[in-house]
């Protein structure tokens, strides 16, 4: 009888399934899921992208390195995932080209899962973007990257509390050293397949009159587009007078 040789403790873990993983590089045709990679500049998105796809895109240590979308893929448990690396942005509320690329993809590209890469050392600042993305999509994973640096800086993050507050799974990684990548892949597949259901955080601290206006407007939007995930975000944008969103609403691109 042949027994499987167990090489390390990691391989017995439910989170680890090396045989199920195949890095596809740029050959991501006929994929089952689209995964977007978003996050602040300089949080190591491109490094996570490379770790997942096996590609070797150059990663520079300066904010704004990725100005265009990079695409790659991987296969996990017989399912193919197309991965799209978006330009790093601090916010989705302004109108620079790189922010538009990121926002348009999240909105119109309709990724099945959005992986938000955040710098564990600067979580508070990173959450600004995280909270905005959670208004747009309800299938997301927070990749808490640069954990090695956070450890050096004696920063301890309670991932369970964070996951509960944000309403999405949180995975700690050090992508440079490939730590946490198997867990990230497993989590992505669980969100994509609906095993994990997210209940994303919604922005709370807005003044009552704005909250009332947003509620009223998003109710109308939901009435028109039943089952829409980001009615609140569309309401925010309409209240801001975002002409691009108004246009998209008119042409029906949003649904």
């Amino acid at each position: 009888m042949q027994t499987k040789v167990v090489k390390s403790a990691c391989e017995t873990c439910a989170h680890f399934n090396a045989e199920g993983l195949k890095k596809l590089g740029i050959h991501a045709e006929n994929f089952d899921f689209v995964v977007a990679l978003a996050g602040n500049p300089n949080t190591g998105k491109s490094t996570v992208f490379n770790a997942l796809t096996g590609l070797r895109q150059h990663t520079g240590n300066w904010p704004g390195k990725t100005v265009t979308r990079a695409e790659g893929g991987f296969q996990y448990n017989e399912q193919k995932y197309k991965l799209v690396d978006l330009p790093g942005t601090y916010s989705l509320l302004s109108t620079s080209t790189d922010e538009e690329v990121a926002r348009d993809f999240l909105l119109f590209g309709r990724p099945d899962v959005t992986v938000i890469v955040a710098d564990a050392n600067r979580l508070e600042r990173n959450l600004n973007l995280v909270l905005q993305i959670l208004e747009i999509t309800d299938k997301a994973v927070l990749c808490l990257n640069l954990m090695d640096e956070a450890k050096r800086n004696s920063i301890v993050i309670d991932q369970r509390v964070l996951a509960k507050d944000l309403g999405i799974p949180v995975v700690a990684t050090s992508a440079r050293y490939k730590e946490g990548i198997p867990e990230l892949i497993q989590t992505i597949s669980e969100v994509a397949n609906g095993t994990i259901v997210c209940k994303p955080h919604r922005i709370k601290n807005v003044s009552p009159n704005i909250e009332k206006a947003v509620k009223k407007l998003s109710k109308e939007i939901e009435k028109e587009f039943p089952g829409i995930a980001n009615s609140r975000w569309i309401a925010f944008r309409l209240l801001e007078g975002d002409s691009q969103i108004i246009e998209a609403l008119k042409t029906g691109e949003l649904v």
Partner: protein
Amino acid sequence: MSKKNIEHIIELSNELRWQIGDDFHDNLTEGIYADAANIVRDSVQTEKGKKRFRLDSKIDKIVTSKTFGFPIMFLILGVVLWLTIIGANYPSSMLANLLLDTIHPALKSGASNIGMPWWLDGFLIDGVYLAVAWVIAVMLPPMAIFFPMFTLLEDFGYLPRVAFNLDNLFKKSGAHGKQALTMSMGFGCNAAGIVATRIIDSPRERLIAIITNNFSLCNGRWPTQILIATIFIGAVVPSSFSSVAALLSVIGIAVLGMAFMFLTSWGLSKTVLKGEVSTFNLELPPYRPPRFWRTLYTSLIDRTLIVLWRAIVFAAPAGAVIWLICNIHVSGDVSIAAWLIDSFDGFGWLLGLNGVILLAYIVAIPANEIVIPTILMLTVLATGMSGGEGAGVMFELDSISATGDVLRAGGWTLLTAINLMLFSLLHNPCSTTIYTIYKETKSAKWTAVASILPVILGFIVTFLVAQIWRLF
């Protein structure tokens, strides 16, 4: 979904927008920050009393200080260039030996053995092959040294500090501080620098960054600067200082390019591209020790080979054109090249250059890196010197001093050398860059401005230098 209902939603939003007042954006932003602060309070614990990022901030204090910031920048640039100049010499001559002295004659004799007609043999082997071989021999070694070093600096996190140091100068010239990053990319390749301007939010400042990127000496022009400086500038000082003098003059040209970039940015922002300087947050990322071998590998694959491939693609047809204009005769035995050189000579003299240089710059529009071989070949043709391999054959001379001899025989003086260095800095971008500018701006007008403005500046500067030089 009906049109009427959509209109209703939009109308409702207009109405509500009116009601909630114009501090909506600020209120929303504050709300997000308040939420973020709450979440972090509950989940993140930092060790109290311990100061974070100590080493980082110490390094930052030095490299971004008012006193040391600029000297350190020039020192680093100097060291990178120095290593490139010194290190590229040996592999360059080895490659030249192999491609030009060994393979080329072998190809020639092979061609004559199979009875290839002289024009086909000349066109393919003396034109296309030699142009490509020269580009590889001259470009590959410096790129293979310069790009990885640049990438290591980039991975370490030095570039944002450069941007930080230069921010004030950019602000004063009415441009965006992030232009420092795109300018640095331009030192590698202008086309890459222009794509990188996408990080600049405001269209006005982005245009300024695109138009002025050409003032960053690109990889195709460094070898020209280095070679000419070594031959002519190095020769006017005692030989023990000659390489230092050459290095300093090349850095001088690079700094002059930056000065032109600031001046042009300032001029544009005061005239056709008026507007406010936008503020931005620049994060100084933590220093990260680069992963050395990984960096070498990616910079070789991502940058060096891609840029080299592009150069080869453009050099091949250029080589063919050079061979053709040297071997097609307009009247009697005057070739097109000789005729063009003759007609450019007067204008060239005004600029302290000559007809050969101007023609070489027209032929070399596709790729800056073939300027020097083209000049040498045309010089030999025009002066009727022996030493080359005949009409329209690009060649590399065995030693740098032999190159100097050819140029001096072609009537070159120190003035010609200085003005060539200036003109190499100030001339139109290469065709790839022009195409990239068009793709990024989608405007024929701005593409034309970005292409023609530097040539006009080049004409003015070289003209002035020549006139002042001749006064003394």
